[in-house]
């Protein structure tokens, strides 16, 4: 093996902290059973953010309408459980399949234009789905939400419990599976072509990369992942309502991803943990004004810089050097 190969493969090797992190994640619901519900929520949001990272972080395609797929996944899974069969895994697969189709169709709309154009087209797409779900109230329950979704036990063995432990493990497991797949994807030549498209589309074309179809493929994959996240939400809460399509879902997931950092897959996970825990803690302290502190956090995060905020010891070192 030559030096070039070694350093290329180095990039995709599992770091020591990664298995440790995942092990910690899977121990968490056991050690902190009282937080199982929020662990479940974090896992779902992390999956959702990871899906956005594939398009935004790796391919440079911005989207303010990722909730379209999240919501579609949620309703597909909920309707499937209600009308066809209650098995969660089958429902998950159906939701993913549905979102893959939807993503393939939607990928036609994001091929051209500037960032702003894409933001608005994706946003519009999600809002139209929202309106549709509202109008089709005989199917979706409209604004009241879709009730009566009862899920069977996972793998026929683990029933969803009130404490949310099964839900947490279910979501974590799905997250892990998709994480491994996504990790493989971004370190493949395919993943490298995505980064090439993000960095310089003109040149990407000039070395023979079929830019449009690559974008379409990754957008479709991301849609499937977002759909999986939505399906998990519907399955673990036994409920789906219109807000899964709302603008703020898309906006929040983007915030979460950017907080955690784009383009390294863990960004969504880190962002989900930080954001959700902070929101939970702050809103417990001041249910009325917690948004202020979240806002302050975002402002400080940007002004100080993600790197420096996470490494406080660099605050003073820098000044010393300049003097």
């Amino acid at each position, binding site marked *: 093996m030559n030096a070039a190969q070694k350093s290329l493969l180095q990039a995709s090797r599992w770091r020591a902290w990664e298995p440790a992190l995942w092990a910690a994640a899977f121990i968490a619901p056991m050690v902190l059973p*009282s937080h199982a*519900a*929020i662990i*479940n*929520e974090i896992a779902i949001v992390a999956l959702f953010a990871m899906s956005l990272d594939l398009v935004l972080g790796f391919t440079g395609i911005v989207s303010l309408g990722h909730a379209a797929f999240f919501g579609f996944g949620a309703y597909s899974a909920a309707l499937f459980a209600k009308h066809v069969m209650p098995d969660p895994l089958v429902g998950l697969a159906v939701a993913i399949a549905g979102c893959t189709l939807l993503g393939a169709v939607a990928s036609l709309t994001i091929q051209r234009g500037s960032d702003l154009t894409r933001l608005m087209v994706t946003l519009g797409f999600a809002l139209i789905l929202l*309106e549709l779900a*509202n109008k089709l*109230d005989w199917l979706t329950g*409209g*604004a*009241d*939400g879709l*009730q009566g979704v009862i899920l069977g036990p996972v793998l026929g063995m683990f029933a969803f419990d*009130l*404490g*949310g432990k099964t839900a947490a493990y279910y979501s974590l497991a799905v997250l892990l599976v998709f994480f491994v797949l996504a990790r493989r994807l971004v370190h493949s030549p395919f993943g490298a072509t995505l980064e090439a498209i993000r960095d310089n589309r003109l040149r990407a074309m000039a070395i023979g990369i079929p830019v449009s179809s690559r974008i379409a493929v990754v957008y479709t994959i991301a849609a499937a992942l977002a759909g999986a996240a939505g399906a998990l*939400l519907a399955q673990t*809460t*036994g*409920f789906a*309502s*219109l*807000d899964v399509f709302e603008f703020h879902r898309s906006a929040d997931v983007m915030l979460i991803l950017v907080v955690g950092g784009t383009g390294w897959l863990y960004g969504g996970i880190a962002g989900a943990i930080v954001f959700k825990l902070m929101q939970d803690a702050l*809103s*417990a302290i001041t*249910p*009325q*004004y*917690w*948004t202020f502190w979240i806002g302050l956090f975002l402002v400080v995060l940007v002004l100080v810089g993600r790197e420096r905020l996470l490494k406080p010891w660099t605050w003073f070192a820098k000044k010393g050097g300049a003097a």
Partner: protein
Amino acid sequence: EEAFKIGLILPMTGQQATTGRQIEAAAKLYMAQNGDTVAGRKVQLIIKDDTSLPDVTRRLAQELVVNDKVNVLAGFGITPSAMATAPIATQSKTPQVVMAAATSAITEASPYIVRTSFTLPQVSVALADWAPKNGIKTVVTLVSDYGPGIDAEKFFKDRLTFNGGKVTESLRVPLRNPDFAPFLQKVRDAKPDALFVFVPSGAGSAVMKQFLERGMDKAGIKLIATGDVTDDDQLNDMGDGALGVVTSHHYSAAHPSAMNKKFVEAFGKANKGLRPNFMAVGGYDGMRVIYEALKKTGGKGGGDALLAAMKGQIFESPRGPVFIDAQTRDIVQNVYLRKVEKKDGQLYNVEFDVIKDVKDPGKNK
């Protein structure tokens, strides 16, 4: 002994924030007035913000039940939030007191749900009873395009038709709708005797203003609405244009009873002069229902016992006499017809007629 815990889940931020604030203030007022010890047991209120996201509501409820071991879940600003929580109430056998959400079907989602707010069919039919008797034969309805709006539209129309009136056109406006101009213009062109409106409180003043701006009152069209439109919370800022608007609702801050006077006064004193609205009274009465149930169970407060003690409560509320129907667990109450009038330089919904003991008509279908 451990405290008796009430988990109060409300929208405290975002567009529904006023709902949460009113209910929180009312609940705290009730506790201040009645002490925080009931039948020897300390009562503790845990307030959570669900930002009007049903999955968050559900998660918070789950955590409250599992971790904090609350005895009662309460609050619930919007219908999906109440609905999403219903399975938790059922599964954990925890009474769920709905203090705000107003879609008819909520109480059917779990046998543990008790409602102290109102339902839209309840207040809409009252208006449909009143209108034909007062020279209103043709009506155009204008409602927000979501569950409660559609409830209001349907029950108003059915009852009006039954009473010999006619709904000539039914308009639904999107929930996110900054400008009512095209809808109102359509109404104006249709020239009905009256326009029936339901929009969530907040949008109400916009409708009213644009109604006037369009000169619709001068064109002989009357504005009738559910009480959300002339929400007490905002009525005073709406200006004289609101004068004379007829609405039907279960509560007005101007309800002429001693109890209400005391309630309004105490509420204002505790909240920088804020006027309680129908949300506040839902929260206030909800607390009463919980307190009384706790008393009845002698401070023990098992879920089923509490629920049994909540069912069938009859009491005097600031809104008038109310009754928790043991069968439906929904509230039975008087619905008042009110007209906006000026009293001591302030605008109030002044009651001029009442339809007694209205059950939720949604339950008879």
